[in-house]
């Protein structure tokens, strides 16, 4: 296992979800672009699973400033305002790109892209393709990508960002055969998605192992707000192996009602005005509280009911949900779904400028790998918009980066070769370490948090991080790297969560009594990097 081959390109994009493919399409306009993907291109990541929609201001009566205010309010004002401005300003144009590339969004009676209501928004601005919007976007992007000059390297993981001094100049990649090779690039775009797989109950795909956060962190980038993990209020609870699978917010957007075992529409006690269409943090906490206080089902969930809607509405607007539940013997036209919160999206991530520039020269990032766009809580429909807005921005900025000769540091390569080779000597099963990690994170760094629990969890995570993982075959090396990445980001989540002594957005500290609300909070972003960790304190 020696690193000999070097692939050379102008822009290297890591990750083939919505953000990565969008970035690659854009970067391709400026120079040779390589798209590195851990899965088959377009099949990994979470974009393809995204059901609900894409927020964009399209109609009279709606404005970008209202979209921005909804996003900031929903994000408990922890968002970076410049990123929010970029998101809302560009979203309509990025939607138009998709439409011009052939996206088949649902149409309204007046022949425009249809929009529906989503939680926390003062205007129905969520564009959709039934409840398979992310799949539609991925299909469109893949069609576009196939027609581009982007070189695809598939089923190969990035294991370390290459650095020439402080500058990022490529990545080391590991394929299924266990071969390591270097990709040198003038600019690198990190679009490796999120890491909610750190939790036992999660909506994420198998690739959601936090690779982007971990690669960025190890290279020295600054990450912000890593404690902000969104628990989507409605995940499946049965059968056991389907736990956490997303039940789209569109169910509530179309009029679905949340009901406890006492038969109450309990959201009246938590947000009487917005009810089920309150923000995700509020609804998730409400469900968790109902279950905790004994008004949940035997499986630890509550009911989500659409039986009052006409069957045709459910068939047309929620076909994926209908089919998924039918498979488990539940006809949602006639009976309610059983749901509970599930780890869904990491709002924190690499700190970027609106152009996607991270704190490291040569490194750009977009999509779920970055922080600051969604603050402390993301609005439904803003993530797909985020992938396209910042995918394009990061791809463009990387593409415009100057050509620059770079040296690959042999010491760095050798260190990685040693790291990978050590997996063959390891003793611990990556599957079982991952299982322990997910349990620990779910119980100690989940929806309800307190300092004692977070410290306990951090200790467990650190112990698991030190486990010598074993690769039984060369194919298992990538799995070992993924589990290490999960350990790394779990540490980042716990440490950041300990830094924030307040409940804000998705971060719910049960051990803190606070006198301020989100607007008057004395705290700003948490920062974490190899240089240290801190929380911004805002001086009134």
């Amino acid at each position, binding site marked *: 296992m020696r690193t000999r081959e070097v692939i050379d390109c102008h822009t290297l994009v890591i990750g083939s979800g919505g953000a990565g493919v969008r970035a690659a399409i854009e970067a391709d306009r400026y120079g040779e672009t390589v798209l590195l993907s851990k*899965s*088959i291109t*377009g*099949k*990994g990541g*979470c974009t*393809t*699973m995204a059901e609900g929609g894409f927020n964009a201001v399209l109609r009279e009566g709606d404005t970008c400033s209202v979209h921005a205010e909804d996003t900031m309010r929903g994000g408990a004002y922890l968002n970076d305002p410049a990123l929010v401005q970029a998101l809302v300003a560009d979203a309509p144009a990025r939607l138009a790109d998709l*439409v*011009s*590339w*052939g996206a*088949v*969004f*649902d*149409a*309204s*009676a007046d*022949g*425009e*892209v249809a929009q529906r209501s989503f939680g926390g928004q003062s205007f129905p601005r969520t564009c959709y*393709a*039934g409840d*398979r919007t*992310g*799949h*539609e976007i991925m*299909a469109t992007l893949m*069609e*576009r990508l*196939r*027609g581009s000059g982007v070189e695809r390297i*598939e089923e190969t993981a990035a294991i370390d960002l290459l650095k020439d001094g402080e500058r990022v100049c490529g990545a080391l990649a590991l394929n299924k055969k266990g071969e390591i090779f270097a990709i040198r690039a003038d600019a690198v775009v990190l679009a490796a998605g999120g890491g909610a797989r750190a939790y036992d109950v999660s909506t994420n*795909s*198998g*690739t959601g192992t936090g690779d982007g956060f971990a690669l960025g962190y190890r290279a020295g980038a600054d990450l912000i707000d890593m404690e902000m993990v969104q628990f989507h209020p409605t995940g499946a609870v*049965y*059968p*056991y*192996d*389907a736990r956490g*699978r*997303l039940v789209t917010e569109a169910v509530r957007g179309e009029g679905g009602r949340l009901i406890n075992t006492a038969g109450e529409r309990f959201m009246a006690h938590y947000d009487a005005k917005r009810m089920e269409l309150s923000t995700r943090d509020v609804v998730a906490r409400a469900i968790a509280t109902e279950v905790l206080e004994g008004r949940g089902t035997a499986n630890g969930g509550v009911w989500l009911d659409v039986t009052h809607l006409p069957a045709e509405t459910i068939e047309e607007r929620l076909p*994926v949900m209908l089919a*998924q539940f039918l*498979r*488990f013997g539940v006809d949602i036209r006639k009976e309610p779904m059983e749901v509970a919160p599930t780890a869904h999206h990491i709002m924190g991530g690499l700190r970027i400028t609106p152009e996607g520039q991270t704190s490291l020269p040569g490194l750009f990032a977009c999509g779920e790998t970055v922080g600051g766009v969604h603050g402390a809580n993301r609005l439904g429909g803003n993530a797909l918009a985020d992938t396209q807005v910042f995918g394009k921005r990061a791809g463009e900025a990387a593409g415009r980066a100057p050509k620059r000769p770079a040296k690959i540091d042999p010491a760095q390569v050798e260190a990685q070769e040693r790291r990978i080779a050590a997996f063959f000597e390891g003793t611990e*099963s*990556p*599957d*079982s370490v991952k299982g322990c990690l997910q349990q620990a994170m779910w119980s100690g760094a989940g929806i309800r948090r307190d300092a004692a629990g977070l410290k306990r969890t951090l200790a467990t995570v650190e112990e698991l991080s030190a486990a010598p993982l074993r*690769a*039984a*075959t060369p*194919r*298992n090396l990538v*799995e070992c790297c993924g589990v290490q990445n999960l350990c790394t980001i779990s540490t980042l989540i716990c440490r950041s969560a300990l830094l924030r002594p307040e409940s804000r957005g998705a971060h719910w500290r049960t051990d803190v009594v606070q006198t301020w609300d989100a607007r008057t909070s004395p705290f700003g972003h948490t920062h974490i990097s190899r240089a240290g960790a801190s929380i911004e304190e805002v001086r009134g």
Partner: protein
Amino acid sequence: MKTITFTIVRFDPESDRAPHAEEYSVDVHEGARVLHALHAVHARDPSLAYRWCCGSGQCGSCAVRVDGDPALACITEARNGMVIAPLDLPVVKDLEVDLAPYLGRLPAIVPGGCAGFPKKKEIEAIKPLRECIECMSCVSVCPALKVTDFAGPTAMRQELRLALDPRDAGDRVAEAVEKGLFCCTSCQKCWKVCPKEIRIPGKAIEKLREIANRQGLTLPRHAEVADLVRTTGRSVARTKETLLEQVPEVIEPYGKVRATVGFFVGCMYNGRLPETALDMLEVMRRNGIRVVIPHEQVCCGSPLIRTGQTTFLDHLKRRNIEAFRTRKIDTVMTMCAGCGSTLKHDYTTPFRVMDATEVLTAYGIEEPAKLHLTATYHDPCHLLRGQDVRDQPRELLKLVVDTFVETPNQCCGSGGGVRAGMPEEAAALGEMRGEAFEKSGADIVISCCPFCEFHISEHTKLPVKDLMTLLREGYEEKDRRKTSEP
């Protein structure tokens, strides 16, 4: 938790000479999917290679064969005793197959058509074609792909999706023809295994062939058939006395009338194989089924629908429906698998349609003598997948032969206009069928479709017979044995 025991077909082309089956017992939760059973095996034996990603049926990474048929591992329930094998595509390792060559053949949009958002009507037409998750299950089962350079079912779906989109500037129909539009035998296997149930033959390939027809791209041999139907009402030329020329309008049974059915004859039984139809009528007489045969009936239109030549289809449909409606017939019996499937799916009829084997098993039949034969059965595509008729012919066949053996199912290659339009492909598929039958150990092949029977008999040394002929022989043998009894 529960324990399940199942088999995985494993293969490492780098070290193994051939695939081998391995049995595993693992603990899984109630309701576990195949994927979770694979995870459980992987936890114990990390060398097992399989793909997965989203775990919720949307990414198309985890398609495998479960008990022979493609399915997504993440949505198919794990069962005790199941056999998990890779898709029938080149194996990378264990359950991983090489999808890249097939993904690479999916055409990309060529922007430059009309700008702007398509009309609602256009969106509604394209939407059903957009649900594809590119799992390549359809590609793995397509018979045409095994013997030709056909780009595959989902590539055709994508061609139509682009052809229907005003934003695309490509010449999709010509491209589809180039990529094998006329290679599809309409065997229906692709959509039966599609996790999204996209009806590619009917909803994509036949639609593309219709557009091809409007653009003058119909194959000359197919156009000849259409001309024949237009001028004679029949898709085969008259070469001998037809069935309709030989039979009265009503055929009374020998004994008590147990039921009355109309008989939709079809062009092949009328013009090419009237003897086989007479065998069937004899079997009906013997079993108390009164058969009404309107003589004004014409071709069902199947050869036109399958090849995209639908301009005068409505005329045929009206004439056929009226022939039975005016005689107040509530059940119309078909004998040809293609006619049956067409009447069931492409017509809206005021009567129910049943295959002859469905009629006989519904009413029950007098037992024939068992002939001293080892028979195998060829499932006609338009009977098995077109009409979900699988067990009835087997049930009848087992009554009339000593031994019945199965042959793994595959299209014979004669359907979808392929026999006429792509004779080399049809012959190659016919040869595959012939070899499979000869391997089965049978000494006779039985089928229920005139096209299959005709085609297979050209590609096997074994005799090929219609089930109805065999049943008649069984009755004759029974009568013979009775009279020769002392």
